[in-house]
């Protein structure tokens, strides 16, 4: 393959009615609202940004300790701390607008405690062009009254998807909880209820203990496990769900580099997110993007979409 052809890899991917300029996105809660990494890399290079969870009212979040390291991973119990929808508009939305105008797809991550709250959030966000799609956070394991029950209760989940689907032309993406017996079945349920795409996976409920003090390390005792430790499980879940649904999947869970990202694409994800990796190497998303392009060149793939679901079994 010639050098001229090398620059011609089509990295764009289709995600329902959206086209992302490339499949590399950053996971909700690991990238703030897009400004925090401004001094580290140019976020306009990304295919998409998933914003930190939003709720109608500001939420203070959980008391510290909120994070700790575990074998090849980390626990977090941030507790959905966020500024609430009003301050999102006054403080964060202008920057989202700036990134969006550079061709980055912006996903608002919604963390309602009731169906009504999800509906209200969408109502508000419909007024801005800085947001292109909604990701329903039905799987955050951190807040007792939060998403947990939506992600685990089939009736509630179906009701939520149907209710939110009616309110907007924009894609509705459901972020699935890994804390279910059959994640593919949950994906099918969401697809039938009208979801346009699925994100998987969110973190696993887990805990750490300090043997010296005989106390839990996190204030909330349990938190969500992310990072390389969960990658093989995430990969299996993406694969199984991709086999069962025909809507696109955004794959995540322990993606640290381009090879990890390619594995998720081969398993059936149409796009990927890096989360914990952004803390380890803030340049990870850009390195993933470059590595993906290099892989395509090396393997004579001229459209990255050709990799999606390309696993040979």
């Amino acid at each position, binding site marked *: 393959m010639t050098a001229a052809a090398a620059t011609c890899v089509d990295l764009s991917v289709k995600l329902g009615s959206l086209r992302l300029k490339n499949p590399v996105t950053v996971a909700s*809660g*690991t*990238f*703030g609202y897009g400004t*925090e*990494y*401004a*001094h*580290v*890399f*140019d976020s*306009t290079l990304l295919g998409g940004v998933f914003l*930190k969870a939003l709720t109608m009212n500001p939420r*203070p*979040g959980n*008391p*510290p*300790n*909120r*994070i*700790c*390291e575990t*074998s*090849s*991973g*980390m626990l*977090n119990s*941030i507790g959905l*701390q966020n500024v609430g929808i009003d301050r999102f508009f006054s403080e964060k939305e202008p920057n989202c*607008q*700036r*990134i969006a*105008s*550079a061709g980055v797809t912006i996903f608002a991550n919604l963390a309602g405690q009731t169906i009504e709250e999800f509906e209200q959030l969408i109502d508000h966000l419909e007024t801005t062009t800085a947001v292109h799609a909604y990701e329903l956070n039905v799987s955050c394991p951190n807040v007792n009254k939060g998403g947990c029950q939506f992600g685990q209760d089939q009736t509630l989940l179906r009701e939520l998807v149907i209710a939110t689907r009616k309110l907007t032309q924009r894609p509705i993406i459901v972020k699935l909880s890994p804390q279910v017996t059959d994640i593919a079945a949950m994906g099918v349920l969401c697809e039938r209820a009208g979801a346009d795409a699925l994100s998987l996976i969110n973190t696993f409920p887990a805990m750490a203990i300090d043997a010296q003090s005989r106390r839990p390390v996190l204030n909330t005792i349990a938190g969500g496990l992310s*990072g*390389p430790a969960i990658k093989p499980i995430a990969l299996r879940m993406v694969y199984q769900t991709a086999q069962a649904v025909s809507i696109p999947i955004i794959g995540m869970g322990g993606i*640290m580099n381009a090879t990890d990202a390619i594995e998720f694409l081969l398993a059936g994800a149409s796009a990927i997110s890096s989360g*914990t990796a*952004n*803390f*380890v*190497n*803030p*340049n990870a998303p850009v390195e993933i993007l470059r590595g993906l392009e290099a892989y395509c060149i090396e393997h004579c793939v001229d459209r990255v979409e050709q990799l999606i679901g390309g696993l040979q079994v």
Partner: protein
Amino acid sequence: MPTATPAQHTLHHTGSIVEVQQLAPLIWAHRCHIPEIAASVHPGQFVHMRITEGSAPLLRRPFSVLDANPRDGTFRILFKVVGVGTQIMTGFRAGDPVDMLGPLGSAFNVPRANKRLLMIAGGIGMVPLYFLAKKLFESRRGIEVDYWFGARDAEEIYLLDDLRQWCNTVVPVSEDAGFEKRGRVTDFANEWGSPNLVLTCGPTAMLREVQRITRDMNFPVYGALESFMGCGLGACLGCVLNTTDAGYERVCTEGPVFDLHRLELGP
């Protein structure tokens, strides 16, 4: 239509270690060559350092800067071996590459009017205060600094000769019999005099005591705080402490230097 502005300058640097010193059995200092950090870091600020290319440990580790030399582009960090990451760091050698984010966080600010400062350091909490004492001395502002340096063992008290050059008085305090003053720094609060400003860094138990004492004595006090960190950049909200007036604030962004009287340090 607004256009995308690329990152103005970067906080993410690679450089190398140029010197490794062991100051005590568990205390090490690494001199690093990263001119961008050496040129712009202020006392109180920290670097967030990648320990390995692999995933053990996975997350970066934060370290305060001990001193910086903008002329040769180097600065030092000083650390105590407490776990897996700091243990690995004892194996670093001159010439090894380093990957750091920095300088991060807020710095100590000493207003012009403050001429008598009291510094209360506990253990490796000496690091940012060492840098501050040095900077104030070099600024020739005629500020008098009393530097109290407490640690459990006399062995964990070091670099006193440097501090003595820069400070009015340097008072080491250990719980063993290593120095004239035996006990904890906060046991000697009646000897602290009447400073315009108190600056402190150390374990939470000590900071809680300093908070109580300075509140009773009505001294303004700033402290450099610690917490577990994820991103170091303000995005993950993992590193927060609770304040009395503004809810949770991030140690990596609003801190690590805080008005100590604003913090809820727990019982």
